[in-house]
C-alpha cells in the first residue's frame, strides 16, 4: 500500500499515502477533516460558486481506501461536514453514497468545530473515542497521550537538492499523531507554525502524503524546537 508504519503507544499503525490512517489489528480506517459540503456552504453565504464536485471526489477517494483495506470500522475524526446546514443539505446521491460506504461497517462520527452537534447520518456520534491505548478526538489536547487528532490540516515543506516540495502530512511523535485533512477542498497549515511547537517533541516526524507515504524529521523552526 506504499504506507508508512508507525508505532504509537505500542499500537502498530500505517499512515497511508492518501492521508488516511490504518489500524490493522482493529481493521479500522481513520480519516480526518472531510469538510463535505464546503462549496455549498460558501455559496450559501454569498461567496463564490466553487466547482460543486468536492464532496463526490472526497467520497470516491474514501471509497477506494475502504476497498483496498477492507476496513470493518471507520472513524471520521471531526469536521466531516463543513457545517451542520451542509450536512442537512447533502443531495440524495451523496446520502446514498454515504449509506453504501457505511453498509456492514461500524462507523463513528467524531464531532469537530465545524460540525458540533447532531447530524442525521447513521453511525455513532461522539465527542471523542477511547479505543485501547489510543484516544481519537478532533483537536489535540495539551496533555494528550496516545492521541490521534485532526483539525490543523498540517502540511510540510521539504527542501530537496533540486527544489522545495510541499505536501499535506501526518505529524507524529511518541505522544500523539495529527492527521492531514482528507477533504478535497482543504488548505494546510505549515509544520513550521508555532502552534505545533508545544505539541511535538524533538523526535517528531512528518509523514508526507503523495505517491508513497514518506517520513522525514518534522520540518520546523530550529530555534523554537529546542
Amino acid at each position, binding site marked *: 500500500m506504499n504506507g*508508512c*508504519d*508507525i*508505532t504509537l503507544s505500542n499500537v502498530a499503525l500505517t*499512515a497511508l499515502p492518501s492521508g488516511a490512517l490504518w489500524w490493522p489489528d482493529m481493521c479500522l480506517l481513520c480519516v480526518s477533516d472531510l469538510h463535505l459540503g464546503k*462549496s*455549498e456552504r460558501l*455559496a*450559501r453565504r*454569498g*461567496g*463564490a*460558486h*466553487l*466547482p*460543486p*464536485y*468536492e464532496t*463526490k*471526489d472526497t467520497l470516491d477517494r474514501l471509497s477506494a481506501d475502504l476497498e483496498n483495506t477492507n476496513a470493518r470500522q471507520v472513524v471520521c475524526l471531526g469536521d466531516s461536514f463543513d457545517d451542520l446546514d451542509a450536512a442537512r443539505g447533502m*443531495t440524495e446521491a451523496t446520502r446514498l453514497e454515504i449509506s453504501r460506504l457505511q453498509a456492514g461497517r461500524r462507523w463513528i462520527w467524531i464531532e469537530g468545530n465545524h460540525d458540533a452537534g447532531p447530524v442525521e447520518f447513521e453511525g455513532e456520534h461522539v465527542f471523542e473515542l477511547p479505543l485501547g491505548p489510543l484516544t481519537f478526538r478532533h483537536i489535540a489536547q495539551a496533555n494528550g497521550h496516545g492521541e490521534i487528532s485532526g483539525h490543523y490540516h498540517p502540511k510540510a*515543506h*521539504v*527542501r*530537496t*537538492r*533540486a*527544489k*522545495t*516540495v510541499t*505536501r499535506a502530512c501526518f505529524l*507524529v*511523535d*511518541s505522544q500523539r499523531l495529527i492527521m492531514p485533512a482528507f477533504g*478535497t*477542498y*482543504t*488548505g*494546510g497549515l*505549515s509544520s513550521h507554525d508555532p502552534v505545533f511547537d508545544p505539541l511535538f*517533541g524533538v*523526535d*517528531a*516526524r512528518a*509523514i*508526507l502524503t*503523495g*505517491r*508513497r507515504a*514518506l*517520513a*522525514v*524529521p518534522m520540518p520546523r*523552526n*530550529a*530555534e523554537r524546537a529546542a
Partner: protein
Amino acid sequence: MGEWECATGCFKFASMALPQIITEWFSAQGWDIHPHQHMMVARSGDPAVLLIAPTGGGKTMAGFLPTLAELADGTHEGIHTLYVSPLKALAADIKRNLRRPVEEMGLPIRIEDRTGDTSQTVKKRQRVDPPHILLTTPESLALLTSYEDAPRMFAGLKRIVVDEIHALAESKRGDQLFLALAALNALVPDLRRVGLSATVEDPEAIAHLLARHPDPCEVLHADLGPPPDIAMLETDEAPPWAGGGAKYAIPAVLEEVKKHKTTLIFHNTRAQAEIFFHNLWLANTDSLPIGIHHGSLDRVQRDRVEGAMVRGELRAIVCTGSLDLGIDWGDVDLVIQIGAPKNVKRLVQRIGRANHRYNAPSKALLVPANRFEVVECVAALDAVYDGELDGDPRGPGPRDVLCQHILIAASSGPFEADALFAQMTSAGAYSDLSRAEFDACLDFCATGGYALRAYDKWRRLQQRPDGMWALRDPRAAQRIRMNVGTIQDTDTLKVRLKRSRGGKPLGEIEESFASSLTPGDTFLIGGQIVRYEGLNQMTVEVTRRADKKPKIATFMGTKFATSTQLSQRILRMFQQDTWPGLPTHTAEWLGLQRTLSRLPQPGRLLVESFPHDGRENTVVYGFAGRNAQQTLGLLITKRLEEEGLNPLGFVATDYATLIWGLDRVPDPAPLFDIDALRNGLDTWLAGNAVMKRTFRASATIAGLIERNTPQAKKSGRQATFSSDILYDTLLKYDPDHLMLQITREEAERGMVDFGRIEEMVNRTKGRIDHVRPGRITPLAAPLFLEPGRVPIKGLAEEKLLEEEAERLLETAGVTDQTVTPN
C-alpha cells in the same frame, strides 16, 4: 471637424476658442500653445480623439485645455472631467501640476484625486459632492461604477481623459477601463473621450479601444521632436557571460551620474534594481545622493524619494517600470537602461524620460548586463535608428474581465441582459462578442455555470419577475467590491523592522520567498541588507544588518518578452562571419560559441546537451518566440516524462528553451516529430503548470476565487487551498466549463503558438544539430539565470523526495522508514 458631426448633431463644442484668461496665462509664462494643443481644442467636440505625442510634448495640458475652457465661466455644476491614468502617483502628480495653472489663472475649478490611497472620508464626500475634475485609476473608476449612486455622481460628466493609454491598452486593466467607460456612457450618452498616448506602432488599434464602438476616432499626431541621442555605455571591463547585475559597469555608471544633473537608472526587474543599488552604494565613495524607487517599497519610502526628486536633491534614481510613465520629475538629463531593452517601443518611451523640454533631444545610454545582451542592445539600437517600433496585436477582450464587469454592474443595481450586452459590445475590445458568449458569462456569474446545477438555490444573480437581473443577497455587493481589479499580484507579506527596533515598514516580499526564509537569513530590500527574524501576524520582521552578503528577495516583476522583430535581427547577426559592429569581447564570445558548439541558423535546429550543477541540461535554440519556446518546453518535458528521463523543469526565452532533469537526453531528433508533438498537445493542454497559473489569474478576475473576503480580513489568515485543486477538480468533473474555456483562450494568447512550432519544425526538417559540448556554452549561460522557470511535477519530484527523506533520516540516525518514536 468631420461631416458626421452635422449628421448626428450631438456635439456642440466644435471649434471652440480658448478663453482670454488662458491665452494670457500662456503668454505670461512665455510659452507658445503647441499646434497639437490647438488641434485638441479644435476637436474638443469629437466623441473620441486620440493624441499621439512624445513625452514632454505638453500632452497632459493638451488633454485638459478643453476642460479648462469649458469650466472657465464657473457655471458647470458637479463633475465635468474624469481623468484616468495607470498610476496612483501619476494622478497625484497631475493634481499638483494642474492646480498651479488653474490657481494662477484664477479659474473656479475644483480638482481632486481618488485612488487606493485616498481616505474613506474623502471618498465618501466625493460621491456626494464630486469635484469638477476627478483624477483616478481604472480600478477606482470600476469601483465607482459599482455604487448605486453612480448615476447621480456622474450626472454632469462631459469628458474623459485617458492618460498613457498605450500602457493600459496592453493589459486587462485597459479592458476593465474600457468596460467602465461603456458603463459611464450608458449613464451619460454624450460623453466625449480623449486618449493620450506615447508613440506606438499601431495608433488605429488604440483608437478602436478608446472610442465607443462604432463611433469614429480621429488620431492626432504631435511633432515627434528631434531623434534621441542614444548609445551603448563604454566600459573598461567587459560584461560577463551571464547574469543581470551589470556590476561590471558600476564605475562607468557613476562617472556618467557625476557628469549629469539627474540620471534615471532603469532596470527590468525589482530584484535587479535592488542588487544594482546595493553595489552602486558600495562604490559611491563621493556620497552622491542616490535613491531607489520600485513598486515593492513602502509608500512612505517612495514618497520620500519622489519628493527629493521633485526638489532636485537627487543625482540619480535607481528604478523600474514604476517610473516609466509620464510623471514630471524635474530635470532628468540622462536615462540609463540597465539590461537589454526587450522591446524597442518601451525603450523609446523610457528614453523620453530624459529632458522634458519640447524639441530637445533626449539622451540615453544602454548598459548590457551580459554578452548576449550586448547583441540585443546593438540590435535594439539599429531598430531605433531605423525608426522601427514593435508590438503584437492583442486579440479580442478577455472574458474573465467581462465576468467581473457583470458582477460590478449587478452591484450598482438591477440590469437588463439585453441592455448590458449592448453596453459591453460598445467597448472596442468586445465589439465582436457574441450573444452566446455573453450569456455563458452571465450564467457563470448567476449560478457558477456548472453541468451539475448545484447552486440554483444559492444563485448569486437572480432574474426578477420583471426580467431584470439582481443580486440574490444585496450584501454580496460588498464582497464583489472588495475583489474589483485585474492586477495579478503574487501574494505578498509586509516587511517591518522588529518592533523593538522601531517597527518601521520597509516594503513587501513574495509569500513564497518569505516561506523559504529561516531566521538568520538575509536579503535586500530598499537597498539595505536585513536579517529575517520571524513571522509575526503575517508581517515579516527583520533587523538591519550591514555585514553579510545577502540572499536576494524575489520580487514579482514583469517578465518582458523580446519582440519578434528584435529576435529576428539577432538571428540575422549570428549569420555574419565576423562582427565588426560589436565590441571585441562580444565578438570573441560569439566566436567561442561557434568553436565550442555552433551558432543557431535559420534553416537548422541547434540542440545542446551538457551536464551542469548536478543536473542534465538540454537547450533548444528554436528562435520561435517565447510563446512557442514555452509550449515546446511543455511538450518536450511531457515526452521526456513518458520516456522515464525525469525532467524537473524548463525555462523559455524568445530564442531558446532550457530543460533540466535527472537523466541525460540520448537523441533529441525523435522529440521533434511533429505528429507526436501535435498528439501531445491536447492531453498536454489540460494538465500543465502554465495552464494552472493562467487558471488562477482568470478565475480570480472572474470572481471564482476571492482574494479578499470580510472573514479573511477579520482573521488575518485565509483558510485557502491551492487553486490547482479547483483546476484539477473542474477538469475531472466538468471539462467544458466556461472557466476552463477562458483558461484555454487566455493560455492561447499567452503561450501556445503551435503554428510557430510547426513552422520551426518544417523550416528545420530533420536538420537537427545535436551538440554535446561537455560544458555550459556561451549562449546557454544566460538561460540559467532567466526568471520564469516552470516546474514539472512528475516522478522526478517523488525521486528527489525519497532521496531527501532517506538522507534526512540517516542524518537523524535512523535507517528505515518505520516511525517508532521512543
